[in-house]
């Protein structure tokens, strides 16, 4: 069996004296899409921030390609595309400038102008490349950030609610993109409240423990 791209062992996280998850184990292989499920407040975003390395408020081990992630941090960051709650789009810059800045930070990103314009066209922002982002709508700003998915060559995508404020047609296009990425050997971890129409979708449910307890209570 090949080593999983990303593996979590016995993850434990507590917030404000409330246990979000404990003993959480999962592995993500190349070509897999993993959906983190759970009700609001169940720790989905927290889990993704922990996996990406933004948050260190947890116990347990995370392995990247079989090595502890803290030891292969550079390699891990080069392979990672993180899409968070905040789009990371500067309001005073244009979409093209934003994407160029992202490309400078993340070397595994296309920087050719044709590719950037193509990516913007793919997210439905054709003709907006020179408009400052503060005059775009919230959904359009998220789309600017999502255009990174078309430019990046990073194998591991961590996407937190990528479909928020995106219209139906946009969601279908992103689903197709995620499937294509997985088919090419990439891996995706995402949270969403949408019903995903993706083949080979695996799920991790964070709300499982609490909902099980809730169901048992009426019998008492």
């Amino acid at each position, binding site marked *: 069996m090949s080593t999983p791209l990303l593996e979590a062992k016995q993850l434990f996280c507590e917030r404000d004296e409330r246990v979000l998850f404990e003993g959480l184990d999962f592995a993500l292989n190349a070509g897999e899409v993993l959906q983190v499920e759970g009700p609001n407040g169940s720790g989905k975003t927290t889990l993704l921030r922990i996996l990406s390395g933004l948050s260190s408020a947890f116990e347990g081990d995370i392995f990247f390609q079989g090595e502890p992630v803290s030891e292969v941090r*550079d390699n891990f960051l080069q392979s990672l595309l993180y899409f968070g709650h905040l789009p990371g789009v500067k309001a005073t*810059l244009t979409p093209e400038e934003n994407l160029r800045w992202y490309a400078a*930070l993340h070397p595994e990103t296309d920087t050719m102008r044709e590719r950037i314009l193509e990516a913007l066209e793919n997210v439905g922002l054709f003709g907006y490349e020179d408009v*400052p982002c503060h005059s775009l709508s919230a959904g359009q700003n998220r789309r600017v950030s999502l255009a990174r998915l078309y430019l990046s*060559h990073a194998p591991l995508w961590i996407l937190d609610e990528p479909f928020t404020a995106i219209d139906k047609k946009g969601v279908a296009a992103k689903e197709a993109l995620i499937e294509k990425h997985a088919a090419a050997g990439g891996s995706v971890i995402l949270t969403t409240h949408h019903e995903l129409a993706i083949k080979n979708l695996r799920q991790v449910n964070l709300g499982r423990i609490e909902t099980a307890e809730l169901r048992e209570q009426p019998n008492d």
Partner: protein
Amino acid sequence: MTNSTTSDLGLGAVFWITLKRDLLLAFRRRNDLVSPLVFFLMVATLFPLGVSPEPKFLSEVAAGVVWVAALLSTLLSMDGLFRTDFDDGSLEQMLLSPQPLALLVVAKICAHWMISGLPLTIMSPLLAVMLFLPDGAMGALVVTLLIGTPTLSLIGAIGAGLTVGLRKGGVLITLLVLPLYIPVLIFGTGAVQAAASGLPINGYLAILGAILALGVVLAPIAVAAALRISVSN
């Protein structure tokens, strides 16, 4: 999964791109750019009105007034250094970049100095003339500000990094950073006063330079660590 069209940039290029980006951002938000400068001018203008317009008195306190005004004006602009990047998620992307965070931080501080400390230094002779600073001390004032203001930006960035996660970081940053500004202020004004009395100022400049050298080496590392802590909460 490498591709020849991707951006495999050297550290120098990343530094340059970050610097250019921050300067461009500042240029597009010009009111943020101007307000510390106006503050600097106002403090130095109000001082003679409030205390005494006597040339003899003013020439004695000119160095101190210009330096304190520069220091407060730098402090005023410090809170914004990482604030917008934190609010819109750009800071997360900086932390998740394979590029060294300290390098990005140095570029941002450098840009901050170019839009705050450098214009202050350029404007300082004007204020010095207004406050009757002796001619012999003019050069010393400009040189000490030129060495001192980058240090103020570097030290202030540590405070900005630590408080960026807090909703009201402005007051806390003042409390954290102001004590660390004291040595810079003492040696800065000391040099100008020594020059006014015709004494050599090399010793003062050497100490200011040493503080700057220490700041350039250590502050970016401290800021990077502070930012990681601020974002992880």
